[in-house]
């Protein structure tokens, strides 16, 4: 039996409703975990079919290989994050920072957030995709402002304002694209459907598309965290509860990236090479600025947030280069980043709850006080800076190889140089926390549901770095060939 696309969206909505009526916070957590597991289970058949070349397309919906990559990422990260949420929020509840009513609200918003993100990847109209992206901002604003501290409110306000402006500019871009398409397709009501737009891409007006893509990369780039529109990102990531930070970094940024990719595919047909320059330019700038800030960061979650900007930069460069090899690398890097970053956020969450501070300078003796967390944090750090044998290494090296292969030597050299900078920043900040003696009392958090997602993510990132399953490499190669127009 195949479950239709609606099923993927209905499960998180149902989970949100069930958590609203749950008698206590424990049930609400269980509902979230089971809902996330169900989403993952239901999306696998549709995604596998899409990887095999069967595009699911009916009514409002459209799911192909590219969207499937993102749907599976949301499934995995959502499940891990919902598991981690349980231990994380229980700890806060025990220490009287939040009540069980807050936890229930958290789970309602958490599931709505998952539903909003999933709907971006399954709709065919770019207009509805825009609406879904805007809804993710609105829903996640409540999660970012979950702790009603002043600093969290400030982060939420910045997040709402900057992302709303960004998304409005993105809509200007969509409007311009629609103007060009409706001119050709006449009054066709499907002129906003992505497959229709892509099919007509060769006949669109180059001037309008250029203008549209500039608005789109600035608008959606705001939400993706590209420098210089990234200023909301470190604040929102550092102020939100840790499981939400992981979701923002590993799932939400991908949503805006996905929208940009869809439009890049259209722009590449209409005006070849135009989008590449912008993608590489913004990617380089993001990489450079994020690298510098990682080096000087004091707050561990801000540092991880800048690391997300850095990885979004690498991914943008990969897609900008635009050869099948580089696009393959960028696609793989999206997956690698999305499984590795939550591992780091979860470890950081343990440290923050144990020591009661986010300042890395105040944390000492981690290896003695929390050996398991210290191990995870250390392994995660090695993974995220791109050391072998972890998956991020494979992604980065493939993008670099793609740059060299395409003859873009300056891009390759600069990228490599910035990666060294990031490596220096991470080792300088993370490893001193391990040594020495812990000062004062450490409330080491425990629990299987904390360690299980971390161990799983570590195994996935290690596994993907060592062997790439054939089904995955086939799927990514076929998407890369299709993306670059090689087939």
């Amino acid at each position, binding site marked *: 039996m195949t479950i239709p696309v609606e099923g993927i969206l209905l499960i998180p909505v149902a989970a949100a409703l069930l958590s609203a009526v749950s008698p206590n916070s424990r049930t609400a957590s269980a509902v979230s975990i089971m809902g996330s597991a169900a989403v993952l289970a239901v999306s696998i058949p549709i995604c596998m079919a899409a990887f095999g070349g069967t595009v699911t397309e009916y009514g409002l919906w459209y799911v192909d290989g590219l969207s499937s990559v993102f749907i599976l990422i949301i499934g995995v990260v959502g499940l891990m994050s919902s598991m981690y949420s349980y231990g994380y929020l229980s700890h806060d509840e025990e220490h009287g920072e939040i009540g069980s009513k807050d936890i229930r609200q958290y789970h309602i918003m958490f599931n709505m957030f998952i539903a909003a993100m999933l709907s971006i990847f399954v709709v065919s109209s770019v207009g509805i995709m*825009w609406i879904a992206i805007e809804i993710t901002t609105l829903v996640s604003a409540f999660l970012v402002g979950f702790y009603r501290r002043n*600093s969290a409110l*400030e982060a939420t306000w910045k997040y709402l*304002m900057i992302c709303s*402006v960004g998304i409005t500019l993105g809509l200007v871009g969509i409007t311009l694209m629609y103007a060009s398409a409706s001119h050709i397709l006449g009054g066709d009501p499907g002129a906003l459907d992505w497959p229709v737009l892509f099919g007509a891409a060769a006949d669109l007006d180059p001037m309008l598309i250029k203008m549209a893509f500039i608005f789109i990369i600035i608008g959606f780039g705001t939400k993706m965290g590209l420098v210089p529109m990234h200023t909301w990102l470190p604040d929102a990531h550092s102020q939100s509860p840790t499981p939400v930070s992981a979701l923002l970094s590993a799932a939400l940024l991908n949503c805006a990236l996905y929208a940009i990719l869809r439009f890049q595919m259209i722009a590449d047909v209409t005006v070849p090479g135009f989008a590449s320059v912008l993608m590489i330019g913004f990617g380089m700038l993001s990489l450079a600025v994020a690298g510098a800030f990682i080096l000087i960061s004091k707050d561990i979650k801000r540092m991880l947030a800048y690391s997300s900007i850095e990885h979004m930069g690498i991914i943008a460069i990969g897609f900008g280069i635009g050869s099948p090899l580089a696009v393959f690398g960028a696609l793989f890097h999206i997956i690698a980043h999305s499984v590795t970053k939550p591992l780091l956020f979860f470890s950081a969450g343990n440290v923050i709850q144990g020591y009661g501070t986010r300042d890395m300078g105040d944390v000492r003796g981690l290896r003695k006080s929390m050996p398991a967390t210290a191990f995870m944090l250390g392994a995660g750090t090695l993974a995220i800076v791109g050391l072998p044998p972890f998956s991020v290494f494979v992604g980065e090296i493939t993008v670099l190889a793609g740059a060299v292969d395409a003859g873009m030597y300056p891009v390759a050299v600069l990228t490599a140089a910035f990666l060294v900078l990031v490596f220096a920043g991470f080792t300088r900040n993370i490893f001193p926390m391990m040594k020495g003696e812990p000062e004062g009392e450490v409330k080491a958090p425990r629990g299987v549901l904390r360690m299980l997602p971390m161990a799983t993510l570590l195994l996935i990132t290690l596994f993907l770095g060592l062997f790439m399953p054939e089904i995955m490499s086939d799927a990514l190669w076929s998407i890369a060939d299709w993306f670059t127009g090689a087939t």
Partner: protein
Amino acid sequence: MDAAISGNLIDLCVVAMLLLSMLAMTTTRIAQLLNAFAVQSLFLTFLALVVADSTGHTELFILGGITFAVKVIGIPWAMRRISVRLHAGREVDSTMGIPGSLLICTILIIVAYLVTEPLMATLETITRNCLAMSMSVILIGLFMMVTRRKAMAEAVGLLMMENGLFLGVISISYGMPLVVEIGIFFDVLMVSAIIGIFALRISKAFDSIDTSVLRRLKE
């Protein structure tokens, strides 16, 4: 309707919208700012109706109706209530004086004309000249968001940007598919509701809705 008359009416509405954006930049009171926004939305409604009538795109009547209900009545009413509850002070602080702001508005309008000039040649709609105006309204809205210090004024800047955007949608393609447009309206409504909620929370937490207190998060 006679084509010349409808053309004149369209120009009138668009120019009025731009002037109201500039008026909004010069006001120093929240109530005036909200009035300027409401009247601007009213002209947007008229514009939608005139274009619907003269081009036969009947779904623009619906768009006009929603604009009237949401942007002329709903949002200004709700924001006025919130600002009364906040005792928002009557002043709209700005990081820039009025003459300087107006000068920059003028520059923004010139930029909008330069940017949209090559695009206008490619369009065939009767309203294509509005594109530059639409871009001006968007840029002035953005400028207002950047320079104003009060949460309410920032929100109005965002809403005015959205008005400019709808002006653009109507002028270059006689509106998007209806599902999308209703969705976008629903969205605008949600954005203003949520911004209202957070403005209330900020005023409770900081005892002020002056967003210059929100400058603590940095490296």
